[in-house]
């Protein structure tokens, strides 16, 4: 099963301490070598982005930063794992690292399984 992890936190982003970067690097290195992590990326600050939104039947473009935003997405990763149990174990390990190396940091790691046609029967779930 393919899972997408989206990490968000109340903005703005802060630079993680070197110990955190090192631990994160180690974990992702392990996961790439284990063939589980197949893609990932940290996101640049919201100032570099924009939102294209539809509301009241109208399309509008809002350049970052977004004043009204409560949460900022900081990064994503795509993993291939056997099941949701494995996916949860990964997310817990990842978040535990934040707890250890970034005291006071708060945020969410959301994991969602990517919708794919069943390889066995060809049906969409």
């Amino acid at each position, binding site marked *: 099963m393919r899972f997408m992890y989206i990490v968000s936190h109340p903005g703005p982003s802060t630079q993680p301490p070197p110990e955190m970067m090192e631990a994160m690097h180690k974990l992702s290195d392990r996961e790439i070598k284990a063939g589980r992590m197949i893609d990932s990326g940290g996101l640049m600050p919201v100032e570099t982005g924009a939102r294209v939104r539809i509301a009241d039947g109208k399309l509008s473009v809002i350049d970052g930063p977004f004043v009204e935003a409560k949460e900022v997405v900081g990064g994503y990763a795509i993993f291939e794992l*056997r099941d949701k149990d494995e996916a949860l174990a990964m997310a817990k390990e990842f978040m*535990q690292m934040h707890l250890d190396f970034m005291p006071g940091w708060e945020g969410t790691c959301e994991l969602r399984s990517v919708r794919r046609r069943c390889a066995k029967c060809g049906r969409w779930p």
Partner: protein
Amino acid sequence: MRIAVRETTLRQMRPVAVTAADIDRTIVAVWRIEQPRLITSLARMLRDVPLAEELTQEALLAAIEHWPATGIPEKPGAWLMATAKRRALDHLRRHRMVARKHEMIARDLEQEQQAMPDLDAGLDDDIGDELLRLIFTACHPLLSREVRAALALRMICGLTTGEIARAFLQPEATIGQRIVRAKRTLSESGLAYETPRGEELSKRLASVLEVVYLIFNEGYTASRGEDWLRPQLCHEALRMGRVLTSIAPHEPEAHGLLALMELNASRAAARTDAAGEPILLLEQNRGLWDQLQIRRGMQALGRACELGGANGFYVLQAAIVACHAQAEIADDTDWQRISGLYERLTVVARSPVIELNRAVAVGMAEGPEAALAIVDRLTQNYHLLPSVRGDLLHKLGRYAEARAAFEAAAALAGNQRERDFLKRRAAEAAALSL
């Protein structure tokens, strides 16, 4: 604070009871993630891969026994590592190692543990070398291909004996016995702990790649039984392929095999229709091909060629599949290039299967007549041969002969779905021959 505490709060928000089965599943999931690191660390201590595997299993049992009561530790990986290492130390002590060398190892390790009871220690280990040793031990050419596959799934992917048995449609006892016997063979031959290097590594790698590809194909083609695909085996083989490219990064064939598997797997969702019927490559909806996987496959293929492996057995096959992956529509397929690649492949490995595939490519590049000439030179009769013949005859308008070929193919096919498909094609040809 333990994770279990937070799970309690979660439970309060969501009225779903966490059952014992849930906890077991969580434990197994954690264990599976940690297993290669556990086995490799223990193997280094014990100088014995099969024994390391056994003691790693004991650590899992200990977790299943303790965690439901204590809650899942904050760092479950570290807990498993500490427990497994303790088992290994016990073992070393119990066996009061005959050789002084071993006593020294035990003492060193004990001191190391007392000096820094650092539960994170495992995370810092560079396990590349040990993992290589683990894979090469599981896939030792002394063992038969089937045994190598079972051992690899067990020791590298953490599949249970039952799961392996189901995947290979074998009784659990049979697989269990095979694994036990294989481990004994390795221990008795003194092959329980060795790492091939240099030229020896390249030579031995072939036996590893063969096993990984066997597992992939077992999942991808499901030659027996009702299932067209057994996705789990593909998934495990892909994972092993990725592991191999990271621990043997200079071996072009490792990258070639990974490319071949990624590119083939990229079509998984497009290979069957909603009723589970197979869809042939050229008729597949290419929009369903997995672009992320194709990208990864192309990267691996590029790397293999950079390493000078363009004429390798797996690299050539990957290059062929890449021609399909890169064609946006079926009509864009570069059949000239594909038939050229098959030509090169027959130089590396002569086999009727490759020759048959070459015929298909030649048929697309030059027409069915040229292809039929190749096919008619082949004698070995397995279901794909009459199936391809039938297709070529059909294209040439020789419908009665096509029908006979499809019927012969259906009689030889081992998979019900494939059989049904071939019978349908026979019926189509029959209708046209009237």
